[in-house]
């Protein structure tokens, strides 16, 4: 510091004017956009945990049959409405590894229901990597090895059994295969339609924009639930479960795209005004090139976030349709189909575990919402 005679302050530290013209000014941004988004998303703990959880859920889908002790439609006629069982480790003070007790059904003629008596004298250890009923890994590789099976003479109903004596836990795993993929297929359909129409409307404007907008408005003015019901009811009842599944997901997608198309259009309208888009146009780039190289990469992240937020709606849609008996039908297993059995309040009161499929629905929907929220918060990585 120095104070000059005329009461002026002049910094005395050496100062030079030789700035490196090519050095990045904000070195922390010297990375591709996805790396910056990831850097920001990583700090969003709830979103990160939800994302990992969903990743785990989807990774488990192809090997659901291996994890589940039973197959989806394997019945145990002696164990109808069996309550959830505990897995124990210690018996009379000695460690003997995971085991269950055998149970026997007793007809309770007073309340007119099944009661189960547990034989606590003999622990029956669980079998691991054992042979059980046949299933297909990822739908086409036959196998009969299960992670865990019930010991002979006992059962393993972690979350109880339903009215036909099927294991609720195993069915939830099988149901996830349909319930979780319905959202993905539906969102793909909705994505393709939404991007196509939204991009046309936003980029070309004028008459195209007008027509697409009016079509969207008409579609959105139709009452959604009755439309779902009508379309699903129109699916021929003699179609196989897989065909019904695909048609349901496509119906969900077709009804979802207008919202996405609007988001795409709005984003396009604002991105169009960016100077790099005008620069490309003035250099002679064709519309398809401008859309592909400049517009799409710049709003893909927004789309992914909004897609993540609309998958839950699809999952809930499928569940609602199946719950009402208009979606998937037995023998297909989905969470909605399982809840179909829990329609009766009386049965929920006596056998509360039949309503357990609600839990995964709630958890997965919440996880998608948290993930989408986290993604949305980290979309714009350039403001710290």
């Amino acid at each position, binding site marked *: 510091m120095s104070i*000059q005679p*005329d*009461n*002026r*302050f*002049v*910094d005395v*530290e050496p*100062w*030079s*004017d030789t700035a490196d*013209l*090519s050095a*990045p*000014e*904000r*070195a922390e*941004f*010297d*990375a*591709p*956009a996805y790396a910056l988004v990831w850097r920001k998303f990583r700090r969003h703990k709830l979103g990160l945990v939800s994302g990992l959880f969903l990743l785990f859920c989807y990774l488990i889908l192809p090997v659901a049959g291996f994890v589940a002790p039973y197959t989806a439609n394997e019945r145990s006629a002696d164990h109808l409405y069996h309550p959830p069982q505990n897995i124990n480790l210690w018996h009379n003070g000695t460690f003997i590894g995971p085991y269950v007790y055998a149970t026997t059904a007793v007809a309770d003629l007073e309340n007119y229901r099944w009661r189960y008596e547990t034989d606590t004298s003999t622990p029956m250890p669980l079998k691991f990597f054992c042979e059980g009923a046949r299933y297909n890994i990822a739908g086409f590789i036959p196998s009969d090895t299960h992670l865990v099976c019930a010991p002979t003479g006992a059962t393993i109903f972690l979350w109880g059994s339903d009215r036909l004596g099927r294991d609720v836990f195993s069915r939830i795993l099988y149901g996830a295969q349909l319930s979780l993929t319905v959202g993905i297929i539906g969102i793909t359909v909705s994505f393709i339609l939404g991007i196509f129409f939204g991009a046309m409307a936003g980029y070309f404007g004028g008459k195209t924009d007008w027509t697409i907008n009016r079509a969207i408005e008409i579609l959105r003015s139709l009452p959604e639930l009755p439309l779902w019901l009508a379309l699903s009811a129109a699916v021929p009842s003699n179609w196989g479960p897989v065909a019904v599944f695909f048609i349901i997901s496509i119906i969900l997608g077709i009804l979802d795209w207008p919202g996405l198309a609007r988001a795409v259009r709005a984003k396009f309208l604002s991105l169009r005004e*960016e*100077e*790099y888009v*005008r*620069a*490309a146009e*003035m*250099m*002679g*780039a064709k519309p398809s*090139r401008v859309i592909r*190289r*400049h517009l799409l*990469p*710049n709003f893909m992240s927004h789309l992914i976030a909004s897609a993540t937020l609309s998958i839950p709606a699809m999952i809930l849609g499928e569940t609602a349709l199946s719950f009402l008996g208009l979606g998937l039908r037995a023998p297909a297993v989905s969470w909605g189909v399982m809840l179909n059995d829990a329609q009766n309040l009386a049965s929920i009161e006596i056998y509360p575990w039949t309503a357990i499929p609600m839990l995964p629905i709630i958890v997965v929907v919440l996880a998608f919402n948290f993930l989408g929220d986290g993604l949305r918060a980290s979309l714009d990585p*350039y403001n*710290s």
Partner: protein
Amino acid sequence: MPLLDVSSLTIGFGKSDPVVQNVSFSVESGETLALVGESGSGKTLTCRSVMRILPATAQLRGGQINFSHDGVTQDLLKAPERQIRALRGSRISMIFQEPMRSLSPLHRIGNQVAEVLHLHQSISAADARQRVLAQFERVGFADPARAWSSYPFEMSGGMRQRAMIAMAMISKPDLLIADEPTTALDVTTQAQVLGLIKDLQAETGMSVILVTHDLGVVANMADQVVVMNKGRVMEAGSAKAVLGAPAHGYTKKLFAAAPMIPAVAAPARTMPHGDLILDIRNVTKTFALRTSGWRPPALITACRNVDLKLPRGKTLAVVGESGSGKTTCAQIALGAITPDAGGEVLFTPNAGEAPLQVHAMSKTQRRSFQRDAQMVFQDPYSSLSPRMRVQDALMEPAEIHRIGTRTQRREKAVEMIRMVGLSPDMLPRYPHAFSGGQRQRLSIARALTLDPKLLVCDEPTSALDVSVQDQILGLLEDIRDEAGLSYLFISHDLAVVARIADEVAVMRAGVIVEQAPPDTLFYNPQHPYTRALIAAQPEPDISRPIDLDLVAKGAGSPADWPEMFRFKDETAPALRELEPGHMVRCHA
């Protein structure tokens, strides 16, 4: 005891080094202190910490800000939120840079200004209205009652900034903080707003902290100057001392870069109009504005009867305020907008060839025109796609036109990036890591990859700091001479244009009002609007204050100009050649 005393203020973000470091200054009552610096110098953070409106992630790492009022001294950094609220708007008030965004669009101007009064004192609605109207009159609203019931979108930028000033002044603060109050305004409006702040200050005796990057503004306003760079004070002292004889290297550098209108001893020779690369003939463009209800659309004439001739290898500048039609002209010249019938644009890529009609080209002609004519945009932050690496952006033009192989395109990109003074190390990086100046260089490099003949520059330096602006202008000059380019240069700043242009056309209200080589224009400005532009240019010299009378005379509407130049609506007089190469729009 000074009114405001800031001592060793230090502010930082996260774990990194402080962005404001040991800043100290004090403001005496009635005095104007200018905080000068380029973007990233920490001047805005410093003044915001006085109001305690720092971003949530900023950490105050030390220092004191003592504010004395009514015989009490308070440390603003430690005072409870409640006391700060009582000071904000009543004892200390602030004007922001962007008048478009600092007023609520859903409230009438009058209500917004009156709100300040209701917040700080109990006052009846009628009294508040009366005081606001009086204040409106003082800040120069011709019809205060109308201003009271207007919404912000009904007003121009200058009027909104006046409303902001009225809001800041209504409770007679001791200290006014003005954060780049005129950066978003045209020069003539800037001069008037600065004059207004000065008048109000003389009237009320308040102190002003003026944050700015423009030494010219400082020279016109400040008593004390604090020059900041990278968060540190470089030089501080009285305006007379600092501006008269800058002692620090950085201050000297800012001075050297400040654009100035040169003092000219003699008019320039006429520019020969022989071999034209671009010839804009009698171009008029009318836009239809949608109106409410079933009424027919309103017609807005963006530019009228524009004739511009750009000789090969020269620079033609079009100067005017926002809304003068200069950008429309540029877009018409590039074929992005079609002019109304009767106008035409002729482009002659090589000397001696037959001219091409820009708005009636075949597909192949259009493709070659798109190679020969390129554009440099105004905002370096939006002209490069954030998702494309620098090399992809530089290779894109050649890719669109299918020129060369990938290796050749890459070599060209390397050559271009060297040509604009950058290193090829930047190629694999993303543009968001770079500063505005670096990005502007990159977008110039992109425009040059196709070896164009004509470059249209749409305010290429108006978003940049002065020292960077200086470098970019130098670069543009070098490239023009090296590659034999012709420039159509659009700008709102006469001083910038003075440096680079061979001929200047001054536009106002959609017509060219005066056209001449810059030296002729500065030697003998004829039109009142040109004179106002020249007079309004703030110069970093305290002995040459802005002549507000001259500004007011020319900057008003064309209907208020002196008899000889006056016109209304469509009845503009013809451009007359007063002397060779000097055209003025006036009655005979």
